């Protein structure tokens, strides 16, 4: 099917400039076929250049019916969004095993604050198990009055709650060393996602078992091949923790712990144990592998800090960001995301002059605790080189540090919890690169 052009149309007329590097023009989407057919003969009655679907031509997709209803019982994104996918980090080697590895959310291509379920970042330690929910059980035992086993039907019978929270791997953002210019926001910050989680308050379920007063820690264990475990303070377990069975309106994705996961708002991703099968109450931390050899921060004095639970306030500009290209000088809306594991975002400042001035960005409602907050700031690009960065303040008064300030306290040896201000360099060409 080819587009149809009115008789009076000049098919060689130039198309309007987009002037906005973010979006593909229609012509570029069809670039290959448009180019191949550049010399196509144009009939006086109907046909324009193949692929020319622009006014005054009638686009080809209007000239025949589209695909039928229910052609996809579970819908998928447009094929033109096929590049918006999870992937590994640019320039990083293929992991030793994809069973214990991670994938990154394409933050630079997302809008608002919700991460589509298929784009939520992944971190698995023994692959993604295929769990039959009818045969999944949650065991609660240890320092409780009544050791119990719950089915999924039991858990979904409890009063439910839905809340929007981010999850961030504490290994997110590895800008400790010299910045790698080619990195995108997906590479630097893509171990971050945000969903509406639905489940039952953990406190409700623990009340069924009756937590003994001497219980101070809770071991959470996955039903995956790694049987991954973390120790959680009882204060957190009884505060805002959820046993989540749904995300963004549907049951959890297997990659996010189907059929049941622990959700600890604001805590480092690893503690939010997926495929949750067991909760054991104890008096002391259990000193699991994930809280001793991993997810601990080796400080410059050779001492390691463990139980670094709360994800400190952090922000990143997602447009313009690494790998993108500004199309033309003039107005561009800077946009990004800010978050804090300690509560609400109260302020985001954006600099477009390398830190000389920091005007406030506009925060998009709703602003809720331990959740991404979308910020925006208008910018008139003069066409010259520029350095852009954002800086968040949370409701505790904590201000996101500069890289220099962070490096004064700890360095790459601590590996986790890198939350410094992220700089993007804009070249006169419009090319945007990672400036660390």
């Amino acid at each position: 099917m080819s587009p149809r052009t009115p008789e009076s149309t000049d098919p060689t007329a130039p198309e309007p400039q987009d002037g906005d590097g973010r979006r593909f023009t229609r012509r570029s989407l069809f670039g290959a076929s448009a180019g191949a057919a550049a010399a196509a003969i144009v009939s006086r009655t109907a046909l324009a250049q193949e692929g020319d679907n622009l006014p005054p031509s009638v686009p080809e997709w209007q000239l025949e019916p589209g695909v039928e209803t229910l052609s996809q019982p579970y819908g998928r994104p447009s094929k033109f969004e096929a590049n918006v996918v999870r992937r590994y980090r640019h320039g990083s080697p293929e992991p030793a095993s994809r069973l214990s590895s991670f994938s990154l959310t394409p933050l630079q291509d997302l809008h608002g604050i919700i991460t589509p379920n298929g784009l939520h970042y992944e971190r698995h330690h023994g692959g993604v198990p295929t769990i039959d929910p009818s045969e999944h059980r949650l065991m609660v035992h240890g320092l409780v009055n009544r050791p119990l086993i719950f089915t999924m039907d039991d858990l979904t019978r409890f009063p439910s709650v839905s809340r929007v929270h981010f999850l961030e791997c504490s290994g997110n953002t590895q800008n400790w060393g010299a910045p790698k210019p080619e990195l995108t926001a997906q590479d630097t910050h893509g171990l971050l996602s945000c969903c509406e989680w639905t489940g039952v308050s953990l406190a409700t379920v623990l009340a069924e078992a009756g937590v003994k007063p001497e219980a101070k820690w809770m071991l959470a264990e996955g039903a995956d091949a790694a049987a991954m475990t973390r120790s959680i303070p009882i204060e957190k377990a009884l505060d805002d923790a959820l046993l989540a069975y749904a995300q963004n309106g549907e049951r959890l994705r297997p990659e996010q712990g189907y059929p049941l996961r622990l959700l600890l708002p604001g805590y480092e991703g690893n503690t939010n144990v997926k495929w949750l099968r067991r909760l054991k109450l104890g008096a002391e931390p259990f000193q699991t592998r994930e809280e001793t050899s991993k997810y601990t921060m080796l400080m410059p004095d050779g001492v390691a800090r463990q139980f670094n639970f709360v994800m400190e306030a952090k922000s990143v500009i997602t447009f313009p960001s690494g790998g993108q290209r500004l199309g033309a000088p003039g107005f561009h809306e800077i946009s990004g995301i800010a978050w804090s594991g300690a509560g609400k975002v109260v302020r985001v400042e954006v600099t477009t002059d390398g830190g000389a001035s920091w005007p406030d960005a506009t925060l998009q409602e709703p602003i809720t605790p331990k959740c991404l907050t979308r910020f925006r700031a208008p910018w008139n690009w003069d066409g010259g080189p520029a350095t852009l960065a954002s800086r968040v303040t949370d409701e505790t008064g904590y201000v996101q540090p500069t890289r220099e300030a962070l490096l004064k306290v700890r360095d790459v040896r601590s590996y986790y919890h890198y939350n410094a201000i992220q700089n993007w360099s804009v070249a006169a060409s419009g090319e945007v690169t990672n400036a660390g």
Partner: protein
Amino acid sequence: MLVRIARVSIAIATIVVSGPICAAERYDFGLPATPAQIAGWNIDVSPDGAGLPAGHGDVKQGEAIYAAKCASCHGAHGEGKPMPRLVGGIGTLHDKKPEKTVGSYWPYATTLFDYVRRSMPLNAPQSLTPDEVYGVSAYVLFLNGIVAQDTTLNAETLVKIKMPNRDGFVSAYPTPGAKP
């Protein structure tokens, strides 16, 4: 009159049964977890030795199991590649490039036992017997110079091992972590 009172009583009873329940009440969902059910899943081991099973294994037995089931990922002598290095690096934690291994970094031998039992080998987790886990743990600790070559590990001996970096950790909870 009697009839009216009876009706009121029935109405109240109905409200109690079908109305909202107080948050402090229990829902009585779930079933009691039996000792046998708990025993099958209760595989964690704490630093005080709680959870260590009966059984034993020595360095020599561990070496054979390691060669068969671990060496292909962690190297013939725990040197790593492609998976993490298990041996060496003791005393390097102050260096610019510290080498973090079981020997140099892990604070508890119980964690080694717990992790091998629950997660290793990657392609067949929870397949090793308690004797095999004791043996592999003994061999990895021997490679690190932490136990002697004639060591046999069991629930009593494993918990007594003091790892070189046992005192190298501080808890950031409940005090917030490193700032900024």
